[in-house]
């Protein structure tokens, strides 16, 4: 497995969307690859930061509405 593939699986894992086989392959890869295991650690850190921050976002359709109203006033 290449590092690019490992990174994609690692990202999927952040959203709990990696399959069992993928996870297994990733763990094996991380065992041998220093760069990827560093990336993996940082990536999980980002996930936990995002969780901790209780982020909010406006739904896309509200934004589209807002944009239209602003454009009407420019």
């Amino acid at each position: 497995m290449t590092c690019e593939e490992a990174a994609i699986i690692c990202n999927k894992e952040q959203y709990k969307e990696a399959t069992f086989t993928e996870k297994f392959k990733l763990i094996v890869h991380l065992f041998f690859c220093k760069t990827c295991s560093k990336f993996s650690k940082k990536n999980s850190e980002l996930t936990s930061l995002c969780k901790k921050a209780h982020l909010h976002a406006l739904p896309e359709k509200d934004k589209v509405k807002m944009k239209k109203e602003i454009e009407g006033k420019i």
Partner: protein
Amino acid sequence: MAEHQLHPETWVDKYADYLFNYAVGRISDAEVAKDLVQETFFAGLKSAANYKGTAAERTWLIAILKRKVIDYYRKINSNKGKAEVRMGYSSQMDADGDWLEEQVADPLSILENDDIENEELGLAIQECISKLPQKQSLVFSMKTIQGMDTEDICKELGINPSNLWVMIHRARTALMDCLNKNWF
């Protein structure tokens, strides 16, 4: 020559979520928070002529939003006639002992600090998200903040899953970089 210029056509994409997070932190009602963000944009447009360009767009908009939040609390208080302060000596009716002592803040409690820090963290993350290319920030926010399914996002944006994961990867890498500089 002014350092900064206003670009109202990019406001929603760049600052809506940032301002929304700020507002939700102060007014827990999401609907009201959304309205305040919209009012902030309108007020910004109205007074765009007064913008001197010494502050960055974001700073300027957040200053307007701060006023809007204060105005909001003033308004709901004046609707009631006047500000009402309801206070009981103790929320635990069965507590015995010295009521005053029971009200003293717990110096060992770190909960309050945590809340403040988490809000600052949230704004720092939003700031970093708004620096991403628009498509990446959109995909990242749909996936991470709104927690949408990969399939739904792909349908809505007309992309395939491998596109999506590449964009997520770029977004996450950029965010790690940005947070490394601005947060740690």
